[in-house]
């Protein structure tokens, strides 16, 4: 060690003793050192298990708080009824409309984000030189870094009035507004992960395609993108997760009307999502009330959806890794 070299040796006898020490000690010879090492290892493991503990506690406590609703007879209602009247007498907790609202804004955002994200990823991985990519990366990172409340702020104070004025909609805060902003938020995720997936497809596939006379577009569309399929799918799922779980934007921009738009394709109407319902109603639900348990049940639904997506994306990414390493897909 550098410090040891600089310091003069204080006592020749201890230095000699150090020198005589065997290089490898068995636990019997250096019990204290062995115990310390084991203890340190155990401590490290404990700290590292914080993550596991955190995930466990998240599930346990959300389920614990949601349980009173699920066992109260309203549990089945949650996934079968469209009516969400938490403060009526008797209350009705049907989450279908808000789940549909979440689906609306998520699918709406994916319709915008997936083509743009994929094209941008292809552009960055195959078309532009390294220098341009280095310049573009920070743009994507900054888009990902802007706080969600700032996106929501923009949606409600800039985009909503503009939409209302320009397109003559009855309200500026609607599913379309939320979808557009969510798309902008999901694009960075989709671009960076699918770019990784596209880059992981080796040169040999590309060169083979070029050798057969394909243009660059054909190579990308017919060879590279299919080869990177599972990675791209994982990217889309992760982008979708961002949109499903996003709270501030949809709370501020989607209008918060617990309805399914009619006609169904009309994104100009207000909707309300799972996340916005939780965020908006928690303040009005007193501690211990069935309303609060219902909101935790919504949180559980959300957690289950994102957990499922997470598992799927991880499996897809693992498959993509196996493929790029040259293993055969199952």
């Amino acid at each position, binding site marked *: *060690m550098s410090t040891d070299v600089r310091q003069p040796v204080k006592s020749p006898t201890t230095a000699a003793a150090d020198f005589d020490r065997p290089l490898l000690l068995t636990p019997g010879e250096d019990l204290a050192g062995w115990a310390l090492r084991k203890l340190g*290892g155990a401590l*490290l*493991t404990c*700290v*590292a298990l*914080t*993550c*596991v503990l*955190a*995930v466990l*506690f*998240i599930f346990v*406590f*959300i389920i*614990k*708080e949601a349980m009173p609703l699920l066992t109260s007879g309203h549990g089945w209602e949650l996934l079968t009824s469209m009516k969400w009247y938490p403060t009526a007498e008797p209350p009705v907790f049907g989450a279908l409309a808000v789940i549909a609202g979440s689906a609306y804004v998520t699918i709406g955002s994916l319709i915008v984000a997936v*083509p*743009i994200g994929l*094209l941008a990823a*292809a*552009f960055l991985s195959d*078309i532009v030189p390294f220098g341009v990519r280095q310049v573009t990366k*920070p*743009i*994507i990172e900054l*888009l990902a*870094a*802007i*706080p*969600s*409340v*700032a*996106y*929501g*702020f*923009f949606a*409600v*104070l800039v985009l909503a009035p503009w939409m209302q004025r320009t397109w003559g909609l009855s309200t500026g805060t609607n599913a379309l507004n939320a979808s557009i902003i969510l798309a902008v938020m999901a694009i960075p995720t989709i671009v960076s992960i699918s770019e990784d997936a596209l880059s992981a497809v080796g040169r040999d596939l590309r060169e083979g395609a070029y050798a057969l006379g394909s*243009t*660059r*577009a054909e190579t990308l569309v017919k060879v590279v993108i299919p080869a990177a399929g599972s990675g791209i799918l994982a990217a889309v799922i992760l982008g979708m*997760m961002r949109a499903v*779980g*996003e*709270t*501030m934007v949809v709370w501020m921009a989607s209008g918060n009307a617990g309805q399914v738009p009619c006609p169904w394709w009309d994104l100009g109407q207000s909707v309300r999502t799972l*996340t916005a319902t*939780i*965020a908006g109603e*928690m303040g009005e639900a007193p501690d211990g009330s069935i309303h609060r348990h219902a*909101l*935790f049940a919504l*949180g559980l639904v*959300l*957690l289950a959806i*994102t*957990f499922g*997506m997470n598992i799927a994306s*991880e499996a897809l990414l693992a498959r993509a890794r196996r493929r790029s390493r040259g293993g055969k897909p199952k």
Partner: protein
Amino acid sequence: MRMLARHILDKLFTCLAGLSVVLMAAALVVILGPIVWRGAGAMLFRGTVEFRRMQLGEFHRGDTGALAAETARTDVARAKMYAALDAFSEGIRVDRLQEQAKDACRLLDAQLQNRQDTGRLSTGEARKLNRAARDLRNRLMEAFEATDKAQALQALQDVQDSPDAAALAGTAAETLVPLARRYRKIVEEVDLADRPKYAAELEKVSELVVKLFGPRAKDSVADLAQFRYGATRWDRALALQEQILWTDTWVSPGAGRALRQVRAPRAAMLPGPEMAEFFRTVRDDLPAMLQPRATFYWQYLTDNSTTGHFFGGVGPEALGTLLLTVLAMLLAVPVGVTTAAYLVECTRESHLLRVLRTCINTLAGVPSIVFGLFGLAFFVLWLLPKFGVRGVSVLAGSLTLGVLVLPVVIRASEEAIRAVPMSYKEASLALGAGGLRTFVTVTLPAALPGILTGVILAMSRAAGETAPILFTAAVAVGPWPGSPFKPCRTLSYGALDLATGDRIAPEVPHNQFGMILVLVLLVLALNVTAIVIRSRLSRKLRGG
């Protein structure tokens, strides 16, 4: 031909792909543009004399003497405008005129009583004077209330020609005759039938004048700071001037068609030379009346705000955000770096490793609002009450945020530690250092820039999150954040509150945008720092 089509398709694809990247850059500009441009207005603007009065009154900042001189100058400029407004409103506000007449009679009563008590006046004479004054007053009241011009003029003539007027000279009631004379002038100019309409319009104008120039010295002091001062900013003043000078009406362009908004000068609704003078003054002399001056209000970052963020800055919010973020990092960094070290250096068991990795990925994928629910259920309602902390608190919020950013710290640190060349570790081990010693003195310093990047990114994430602190730490109104066991105001929650919840916020758009700008700048500054550190690092690793 087919080749050509393929070639064109190829070029088209390239163009589309390029366009999508341009679109991303455009989105960044479109979203940040208004926030930066309008938010900068919270700190850089032309402040009026009202702003300097507000700074002195609310924040004890500025030069009293200079302000007094300036106020004197603006008062001179405003006097003409107020005089014109008062002269006109005198004729229109019937209730005020009636009040004046009644006051005169009341004063007279007191005066007569006093004279009787001191024996200077006999009872009979007093009664006679009183009756005369009362007659005059009643006649005057008739004139005030009349909507017919001839009738009003007749009544006023009667008052002016009254033989009792001479007898009342020298008493409090002598003001009745000049009042009649003044009112006569108004009657000759103004259409009496339209008087209620004028009164309503005048009411609007007076309200706007108070908003523009602040309450006058004779008015009572308002409770809320927002009513104590006029327009503190020149842009605000111009908007109010516009509202005074012009009025919007909705007219129907024809049956069955949508109403159209038409702008008309307000002067057309309030006739008379006084109002013409008033409108001219407001139009031309506004700079003299408000003394706008370029102002850099950097204290915006540190000042507290008055009710509803009408005046002042974002000091408590900025401090609250910093407090939450730093506390969250105190939890996340040690745990995160240790976990990363464990992942890279210690574990050989693939089972545990896989479980750990799955958990980290799961944690990264949990929606932020679910973290909020978890923080509420676990920290606020279960864990912290065991230690005597009840309700929402900075501690609960920062613990929640700490768990939220844990995956960010772990992933960045793991990558950084993995990137340290094996030769470093091997050299250290060969020199006889143990595993822990090698890690602390060799691997960690070498990985530090990379870890730092991750920590900075995690900080920016924690500072920007709103949903996890909704139920665990944030309040919209409260004192300066001090104790970690109390809730606090934060930039993100404040921005949400100003954008959606607040009623008076739309009147102060610069403060709305200023709040979000401070947050965005904080987050972007952290990110840019991280990007710079990383690019330097990669250059170093490439051997530059």
